[in-house]
């Protein structure tokens, strides 16, 4: 089954909840909805499921218009961020419930529940009620219920957000594989860029109820089409510097200039925003020699460390720049114990930065870096 959203919109009064969302979802694919809280991921899923009706646009299932059809007339399974199970039923009955409603034979139900319980490692808990399970087990019950139904559209709304780290890692790897076997369209909402990258497939970035970019996940990450997509797909937050390009020179807000290279090369004169992720910014300790002389690929700014976040083998160093350009987050390999107040210089790799025009759209002079938006790349990406 393919599912096409054609300029689907949802308004409540004058408030626009979802604005002209167009998506093309193919069977057997992983589709990630990436956006911050309240960006409309859940609402979009509810529209796909038929729990809510759109106020404009069409939803087409295999060429059949299903815009006005309720959820019971669709083949949908959904898992919520909160663990939603039927509290009065046992785990077995919870998983079996969609099959019982379909009126399947008892032996068939037993076989399918047993298979799902095995995949979700719930076999020892089948007789318990959801209240007697841990959070992870409760969510696995909800996932098993979505799995046994063998629905053609499976909606997972931040299913792992409330789970502990280790379980999240495990399930994130297993879920796409388990559901891929059913050949369903898999839609997975998440707020975490890292999770989207691990899930692969295709990603649609959302910002304030609007789909800002759609494409293969890695491509969207590499080539954000606009500032909103880049912001959503950046953790820690995207670093942004306002620059003015004039005659091959870029000027920062503090009046310092540097050669307009990388994404700035060949841009017409005018103001733009230079956006870059933490991995495009290096930290050089002053006096260490690294920050002296001309930086190889871009400008450098002196500043003082405000915070260092250490995540495993990497450190994110927040540097407050002297020139009042705001805080820049830099990625440093290895664990570095910078103290707040340490003097450093931020070296920017212009080649990994993006230039955005005043309207937030990505701008580039060279054709090679033009960015594909919309449903241009429709073929599923092998996971």
């Amino acid at each position: 089954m393919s599912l096409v959203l054609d300029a689907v919109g949802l308004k409540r009064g004058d408030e626009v909840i979802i604005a002209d969302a167009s998506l093309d979802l193919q069977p057997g694919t992983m589709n990630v909805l990436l956006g911050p809280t309240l960006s409309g991921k859940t609402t979009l899923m509810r529209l796909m499921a038929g729990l809510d009706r759109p106020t404009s646009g069409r939803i087409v299932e295999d060429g059949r218009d299903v815009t006005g059809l309720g959820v019971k007339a669709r083949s949908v399974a959904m898992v919520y961020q909160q663990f939603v199970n039927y509290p009065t039923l046992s785990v077995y009955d919870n998983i079996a419930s969609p099959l019982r409603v379909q009126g399947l034979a008892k032996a068939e139900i037993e076989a399918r529940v047993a298979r799902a319980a095995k995949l979700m490692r719930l076999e020892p808990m089948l007789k318990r009620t959801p209240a007697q399970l841990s959070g992870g087990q409760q969510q696995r019950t909800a996932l098993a219920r979505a799995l046994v139904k063998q629905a053609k559209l499976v909606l997972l709304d931040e299913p792992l957000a409330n789970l502990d780290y280790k379980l999240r890692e495990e399930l994130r790897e297993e879920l796409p594989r388990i559901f891929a076997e059913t050949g369903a369209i898999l839609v997975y909402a998440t707020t975490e860029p890292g999770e989207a990258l691990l899930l692969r497939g295709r990603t649609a970035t959302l910002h304030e109820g609007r789909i800002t970019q759609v494409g293969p996940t890695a491509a969207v990450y590499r080539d954000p089409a606009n500032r909103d997509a880049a912001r959503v797909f950046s953790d820690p937050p995207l670093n942004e510097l306002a620059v003015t390009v004039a005659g091959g020179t870029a000027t920062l807000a503090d009046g310092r200039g540097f050669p307009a290279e990388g994404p700035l090369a060949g841009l017409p004169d005018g103001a733009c925003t230079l956006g870059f992720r933490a991995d495009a910014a290096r930290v050089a300790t002053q006096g260490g020699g690294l920050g002296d002389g001309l930086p190889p690929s871009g400008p450098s700014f002196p500043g003082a460390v405000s915070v260092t976040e250490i995540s495993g083998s990497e450190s994110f160093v927040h540097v407050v720049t002297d020139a009042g350009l705001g805080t820049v987050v830099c990625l440093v390999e290895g664990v570095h114990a910078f103290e707040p107040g340490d003097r450093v210089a931020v070296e920017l790799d212009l080649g990994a930065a993006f230039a955005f025009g005043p309207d937030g759209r990505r701008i580039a002079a060279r054709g090679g870096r033009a960015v594909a938006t919309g449903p241009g790349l429709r073929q599923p990406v092998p996971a």
Partner: protein
Amino acid sequence: MSSSSVLSAPLGAASAAAAPTARRPSGTTVGIALYVLFLFVPIYWLVNVSFKTNTDILSGLSLWPQHPTLDNYRRIFVDPEWHASFVNSILYVGINTIVSVAVALPAAYAFSRYRFVGDKPLFFWLLSNLMAPPAVYAMPFFNLYSATGLFDSIWAVALAHCLFNVPLAVWILEGFISGVPREIDETAAIDGYSFPRFFVKIFLPLIANGIGVAAFFCFMFSWVEQLLATTLTTVDAKPIAGMMSRAYSAAGLDWGLLAAAGVLTMIPGAIVIWFVRNHIAKGFALGRV
């Protein structure tokens, strides 16, 4: 007792001084004991009087029956009119409880789950039914039931009591229903449940405590309500309250009979409380009561 001694243990000097009279009850224990005692005085006195003869009752103060007798109870049990009144009361209270909760369930679900024009004013208007004393409604009900032939039937009382029991049940149940996440309803819809099947199989068990609490309050209000019950009946559907008023007649007040009837009247309430005590304990902790 043990908890009070634990509590006083850190006060080293005090407990050491109290050591010779080791088991002396603390002030709290005495206070609570007195409180419970006073709570039970009226009930004890009713039971006490019900086992006395009328001459005993009038001859002065005695803490227990001097000439214990079961005569009062016997007179109630052999008199078919007393029987009938008990049956009448239980019937209209039962009917009222079932009707009130059955009618209130869908209403409470709608108030909890849907937004519709005038939902909030309607909700509070329902409650305003509870604010007027039953006497206000006695006359219109009397007139209406006389005209429609419902007068002097158990249905007359059962339906009249719905006037304040339905809003009460809606109010209580709405609180419990709002405590159930909407996602459960949606998950059931996604699973393919029809609404009636979902409501009976999934939803009702979830709000069983709320139904227990609502039924308990409907029972209690209907059971103790006297004015409507006596105004809307005469002979055929005479309730307990109506029978009791016969105990004070031209011949004087039959104290013993009245007390025995009072004791018997408390029993159904006690039985209901016994059966729903767990629901009520949970219900008070969870919902809107």
